[in-house]
C-alpha cells in the first residue's frame, strides 16, 4: 500500500515511538556522569542518540520531578549552568530498566531472527 504526501511515512512514526522509550534510558545512562543540558545533548548526539532540545529539557524536568535526577545551578566558564546527575533512586531504576531492555532486546532478536537461528547462535 502506498502512502500519499499528506500522510507521513509510517516508518517515521513507528521509529519515533520506538525511540521514545530508548531516549529515557539513554539520558539516564548518560547522566551517571554529571552534565549540563547542552553538553548532555552533544554527548548523546556523539554516541548516535541525537535528541531534540525541546524534547530533552522537558524530559530532564520530568525525570527530576520523579526523583530520578538531581540538579544544581553552578557557575562554569563565567556562566550559570544547570548540572544534572542520576540520583541514587535513579541509579536503581536505571539498573532495572537496563535489565528490562536487555530482556526485550533478546526476545526481539529471537522473534526477528527466528527460533532456530537463535538456538544455533546460543549453541555456538
Amino acid at each position, binding site marked *: 500500500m502506498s502512502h500519499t504526501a499528506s500522510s507521513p511515512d509510517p516508518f517515521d512514526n513507528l521509529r519515533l515511538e520506538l525511540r521514545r522509550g530508548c531516549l529515557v534510558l539513554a539520558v539516564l545512562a548518560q547522566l551517571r556522569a554529571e552534565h549540563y*543540558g*547542552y553538553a548532555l545533548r552533544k554527548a548523546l548526539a556523539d554516541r548516535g542518540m541525537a535528541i531534540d*532540545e*525541546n524534547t530533552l*529539557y522537558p524530559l530532564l*524536568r520530568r525525570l527530576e520531578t520523579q526523583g530520578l535526577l538531581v540538579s544544581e*545551578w553552578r557557575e562554569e566558564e563565567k*556562566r550559570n549552568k*544547570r548540572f544534572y546527575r542520576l540520583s541514587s533512586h535513579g541509579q536503581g531504576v536505571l539498573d532495572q530498566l537496563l535489565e528490562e531492555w536487555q530482556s526485550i532486546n533478546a526476545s526481539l532478536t529471537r522473534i526477528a531472527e527466528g527460533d532456530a537461528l537463535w538456538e544455533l547462535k546460543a549453541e555456538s
Partner: protein
Amino acid sequence: MELLNRYLHAVKFWLPKSQQEDIIAELGEDLRSQIEDREAALGRPLDEDGLAAVLKQRGNPMLVAGSYLPQRSLIGPALFPIYQFILKLVIVWILPPIFILVVGPATVLSGRDPSLALAETAWTLLMAAVFAFGVITLVFAAMERYPHESMLKWDPCRLPRVPPAEPITQPQPVPGYRAIAELLAAIGASLLWIEVMWLRTSFDFNGVAITLAPVWRSFFWPILLVTLSGVPIGLMGWLRPWWMRARSCVRLAVDGVTLVLTGALVNMGPWVRVAAPNLPAAGVADANHWANVGTSIGLGVVAIITLVDAVQEARRLVRQKPAGNHAPVAVRR
C-alpha cells in the same frame, strides 16, 4: 543579543509563573551555548540573520513553552471513538432529517416568504448543530475528567448479542425493465410537459378555469431538459447497465439542477390562477389560495424526493469502486 532576549521573553509569556525563571534561565543558557558553538565554527560573531536562524530552528515560542507543560487533552483516546460516534449520530443522522422533513416544511408552510423560511431553517439547523457539538463535547470532557465507575465496572455477559450477518450488498446494475420504464417515463413526461406547458396553459373544469402563471413558461426549457435527461439515463441503464458510476454522476447532476429549479420556482408563486364566473368572489379567492398552497406542497414534495434520490445516488457512488465501469463477468441484459 536583543533578538535572543525577545525570544526568551516570548517563551516566558506562555509558561506557568512558578517555573518561568528556571526554564528561561536554562533555555537561555542552552541557546547561548549553541550560539557560541556556531560562532566558534564560523570564526566570527553571529550576525542577526544567523541568530534568527538558530532561534527559528529552536521553534515557535508558544510551541517551545508548550513542550514544558504536561500533555493534556480535552477528550482522551479512550473516549474519543464514542465521542465521534455520538457526534456523527446527532449532527449527521438526527438533526438534518428532522430539519429537512419536519422543521423546514413547517416553516415554509407557515405562510412566510419561502426563501426567507428556507434560509431561516438552514440557519437554525446550523445553530442546532453548533449547540449539539458544544453540549456533546462538554459532556465528554466532563466524563474524561471525572470518569464514572460504570466505565471501569462492566460485565462481559451483558454485552449485546452479535446481529446476524447481513449479506454484503454491492451496488447492483440497473435491471433492464427499470431502465426501459425510466426511458418511457422520460418520454411521456416530456410530451406531457410540452402539451401542458406550451400548447395549452389553461384548463376548464365545468366552468372553473385553472390557468398556469407565466412563470412556468420561463422555466419551460430547463424543465424540459430535466425530463428529457431521463432518456439518455434510461438508454444507459438499458444498453450499458454496468456503467453505474457514470449513471450515478449524471443522476446526481440532474438532481442538483432539479433542486435549483424547484428552489427558484418556490420563490416565484403564485403558480396558478383560478377563475369561476359562476362562484362567489370569496369562494374563488379560497380556491386560488388552496390551489397555490397545493402547488407549493407539490414543489416541496418534489424537492424532498429529489433530495432523497440524490443522497441514494451519492451513497451508490461512494460504495462503487472508481474502476466500476467495467463489464462484470455475468451481466443481465
